[in-house]
């Protein structure tokens, strides 16, 4: 679709109707993972390793099996062998084999007639462990004396001579680095670290699984991607994917952490072993923190060359990241994002994915990008301060635009970073005067976004109302945005379209709701599916009017003659066509399956004002502004919601959230009491500005908006704290003790 075809104003797109699932959610009727029961249902519970690294010598479940009400116990022995690659990783993470790899690693699972009996049974399973040396820090894991977690796991990319814990290596870049740094008036190199954080969704993982001896299975589960659950669970269990039907529940938040499997295969294995009785499993909050998929922690070194006028001449980044006891830390996506906002003639990136005795990391909202932004956007701010330059002006001077070659390779199409920077400069927050101990910080952020495998089907009802079936679970309001795009395309009322998230038996393959793709990819496919239905409806009208289908157009929800010479026929509305479709050839529907291309990146700029108590180091967020390019905001309220939610998670990550381990490698804070996510009284109202630079790769110009919002807060807060106190913190979280120590050190106190 050429750019100029993207209209400026629409009938429905850009309006703020009530979302279709609102009533169920405000009345408590919406059904999430743990809200469903089934006849004959058993309750499952998991026995988890209390050690960070231990060989499993023996598992004795005899006492547990003898407990009245216990119906089945499974261990790794109940799972097929011979898996390789990521399938093996998934099985190993689902349930430990010879070695427990982290505190919380599943070792055995029990199914019983009540939850309490299942919990009691866990205490009756005896496991003999041989405790092994462990490591949890990324740099410690790379040192020669570090325990090797899985020798031989390094893949083809890892050069010789590195510790076996280094399992992936990447390096890329372009331009003449030496010349770049030589041309700079100021070259600075600094190191930054970020700790692992958890997505923090309030709904713990939960599922209800049933698997018969015939290999046929059913699963109800809270997930971002039920086709992934199907494929992964089938592989881990050794059954055929098509025989496992997965139905998505409403999902109580995911942010990337519910795009993979944890307890699902255990529920199915227990069900199979218990004669096919359904098994419900619900994680406790402590299990969610210990044994699901927090993001990686990172140790980063960045070097930047800048001229006196702020022009960037060279950028170099080395990222060392641990993503738990399995390959998968988002090193390459972090490195791709590091300098993605700036046109720098010479860049070089090196990255290491390192194993530690921590849970297998999963994606967390623009995985890798927040860490990269923390390092690069902080260093740029430090250099602006040193050269006395305005941080927004320097970013504007170097900002990438359409036609710029990106730091990770490809040349950019239309993008909105410049417009976002300008909108931030023009915002009233920028002119609010700052008092003592107060400071303002800015930062830019980026995410590629993702298309992904997408299948959508659309059906015209007999009354002319429309049902759309999508495979992307709706977390942030995508049913509303897809209904808006479908109704706009069909020229009918928003209320006449119902969008349903359907199970794996009812639709072609879909990737999860990840990569900010739901509104973009499912929306795009729904529009194309709608156009197929329109073409068929025009054919039906043409046949009724006895004219050529090419001579029929579709306007305001009705077939109309294309022009005066096509014939004088009154418009034939969708309801009329639908009422007669049974006798004019059959039901009318449209569908579209594609691996969606034409993805538009989304840039954002955040501005935050903080006040730091110089006596305690506590940071209070006074004002927070999010400016981000949405391409086209389909439902502006839910675009704002993504901006505000991303900022809030970023603020938590920057100030208080972290995984804290004891000397034995055990997680010390697996509860919301000590894993400190922001509470309502911690935050101000979060101001938002939606920039719209349409993405030509989407019929309505949509760019994914779900992830960019979490990337700028980390550096923006570091820059604001530096402005307020003069102290520069380069490790997260910037908790009060660390801020106070930095203030003391900076004042020589």
């Amino acid at each position, binding site marked *: 679709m050429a750019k100029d075809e993207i209209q400026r104003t629409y009938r429905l797109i850009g309006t703020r109707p009530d979302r279709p699932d609102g009533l169920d959610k405000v009345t408590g009727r919406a059904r999430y993972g743990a809200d469903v029961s089934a006849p004959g249902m058993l309750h499952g519970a998991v026995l988890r390793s209390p050690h960070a690294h231990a060989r499993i010598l023996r598992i004795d479940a005899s006492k547990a099996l003898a407990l009245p009400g216990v119906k089945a116990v499974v261990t790794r022995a109940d799972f097929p062998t011979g898996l390789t690659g990521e399938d093996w990783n998934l099985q190993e993470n689902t349930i430990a084999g010879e070695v427990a790899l982290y505190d919380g690693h599943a070792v055995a699972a029990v199914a019983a007639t009540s939850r309490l009996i299942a919990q009691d049974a866990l205490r009756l399973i005896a496991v003999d462990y041989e405790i092994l040396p462990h490591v949890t820090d990324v740099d410690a894991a790379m040192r020669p004396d570090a325990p090797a977690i899985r020798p031989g796991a390094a893949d083809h990319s890892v050069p010789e001579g590195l510790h076996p814990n280094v399992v992936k290596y990447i390096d890329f870049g372009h331009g003449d680095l030496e010349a770049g740094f030589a041309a700079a008036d100021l070259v600075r190199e600094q190191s930054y670290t970020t700790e692992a954080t958890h997505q923090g969704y309030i709904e713990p993982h939960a599922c209800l699984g049933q698997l018969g001896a015939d290999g046929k299975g059913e699963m109800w589960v809270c997930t971002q991607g039920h086709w992934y659950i199907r494929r992964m669970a089938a592989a881990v269990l050794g059954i055929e994917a098509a025989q496992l039907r997965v139905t998505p529940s409403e999902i109580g938040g995911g942010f990337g952490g519910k795009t993979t499997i944890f307890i699902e295969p255990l529920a199915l294995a227990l069900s199979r072993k218990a004669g096919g009785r359904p098994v419900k499993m619900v994680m406790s909050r402590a299990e969610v923190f210990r044994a699901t998929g927090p993001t990686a922690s990172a140790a980063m070194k960045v070097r930047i060359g800048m001229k006196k006028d702020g022009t960037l001449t060279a950028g170099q980044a080395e990222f060392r990241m641990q993503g738990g006891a399995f390959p998968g830390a988002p090193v390459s996506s972090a490195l791709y994002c590091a300098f993605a906002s700036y046109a720098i003639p010479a860049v070089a990136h090196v990255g290491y994915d390192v194993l530690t005795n921590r849970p297998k990391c999963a994606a967390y909202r623009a995985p890798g990008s927040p860490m990269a932004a923390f390092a690069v956007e902080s260093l740029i701010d430090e250099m602006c301060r040193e050269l006395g330059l305005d941080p927004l002006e320097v970013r504007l001077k170097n900002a990438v635009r359409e036609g710029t070659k990106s730091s990770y390779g490809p040349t950019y199409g239309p993008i909105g970073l410049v417009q976002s920077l300008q909108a931030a400069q023009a915002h009233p927050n920028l002119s609010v005067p700052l008092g003592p101990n107060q400071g303002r910080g800015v930062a830019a952020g980026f995410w590629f976004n993702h298309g992904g495998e997408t299948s959508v089907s659309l059906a015209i009802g007999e009354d002319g109302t429309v049902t759309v079936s999508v495979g992307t679970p709706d977390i*942030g309001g995508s049913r509303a945005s897809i209904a808006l795009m479908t109704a706009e395309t069909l020229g009918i009322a928003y209320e006449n379209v119902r969008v349903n998230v359907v199970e794996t038996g009812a639709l072609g393959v879909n990737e999860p709701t990840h990569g900010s793709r739901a509104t973009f990819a499912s929306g795009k496919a729904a529009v194309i599916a709608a156009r197929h239905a329109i073409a068929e409806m025009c054919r039906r009208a043409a046949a009724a009017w006895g004219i050529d289908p090419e001579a029929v157009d579709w306007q305001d929800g009705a077939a109309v003659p294309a022009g005066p010479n096509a014939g004088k026929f009154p418009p034939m509305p969708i309801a009329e066509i639908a009422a007669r479709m049974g006798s004019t050839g059959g039901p009318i529907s449209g569908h579209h399956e594609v691996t969606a291309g034409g993805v538009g990146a989304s840039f954002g700029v955040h501005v935050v004002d903080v006040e730091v108590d110089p006596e305690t180091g506590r940071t209070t967020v006074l004002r927070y502004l999010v400016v981000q390019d949405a391409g086209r905001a389909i439902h502006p309220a839910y675009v704002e*919601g993504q901006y505000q939610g991303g900022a809030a998670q970023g603020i938590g990550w920057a100030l208080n959230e972290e995984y804290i381990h004891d000397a034995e490698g055990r997680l010390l804070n697996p509860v919301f009491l000590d894993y400190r996510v922001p509470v*309502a009284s911690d935050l101000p109202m979060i101001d938002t500005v939606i920039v719209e630079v349409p993405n030509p790769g989407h019929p309505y110009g949509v760019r994914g908006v779900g992830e960019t919002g979490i990337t700028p807060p980390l550096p923006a807060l570091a820059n604001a704290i530096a402005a307020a106190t003069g102290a520069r913190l380069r490790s997260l979280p910037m908790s009060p003790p660390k801020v106070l120590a930095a203030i003391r050190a900076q004042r020589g106190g």
Partner: protein
Amino acid sequence: MTRIHVTATVNGDPVEFLADPRETLLDCLRDHLGLTGSKEGCGTGDCGACSVQMDGVLVCSCLVLGVEAEGRSIDTIEGMATGGDLHPLQRKFIEHAALQCGFCTPGILVAARALLDQNPDPTEQEVRYWLAGNLCRCTGYDKIIRAVMDAAAELRGAA
């Protein structure tokens, strides 16, 4: 493990159930009374997703034993609308897009109603501190606070 017979009133209706002494009121509402609107987000009183009112007092139902509910009157999210008519808070949450995944919404709505019952004209800070025990990870709280204050204004207007 012998279970104890409990009689109570839930959303105005008399109810009876058998509870193991170790089961929380939340477990009983969800597993014995089929009221799954109250959610378990943490089981330790840190997230508020299980908020109910017991004899008018806002509490976490995961920090109350089922057997302690004997003779008490419990109000859950399922009782917030009267028939088909939503409570103004429920309407304003939809109107303001004050929810995304919706998992924390029942607990926040029950807590917000308890607030407005005793403070019909709360300031932004009063709403934020009252709701500090209701964690939300999706919205950043902004639209939730606006929806609560808008509902308060409507209720004052109607009062």
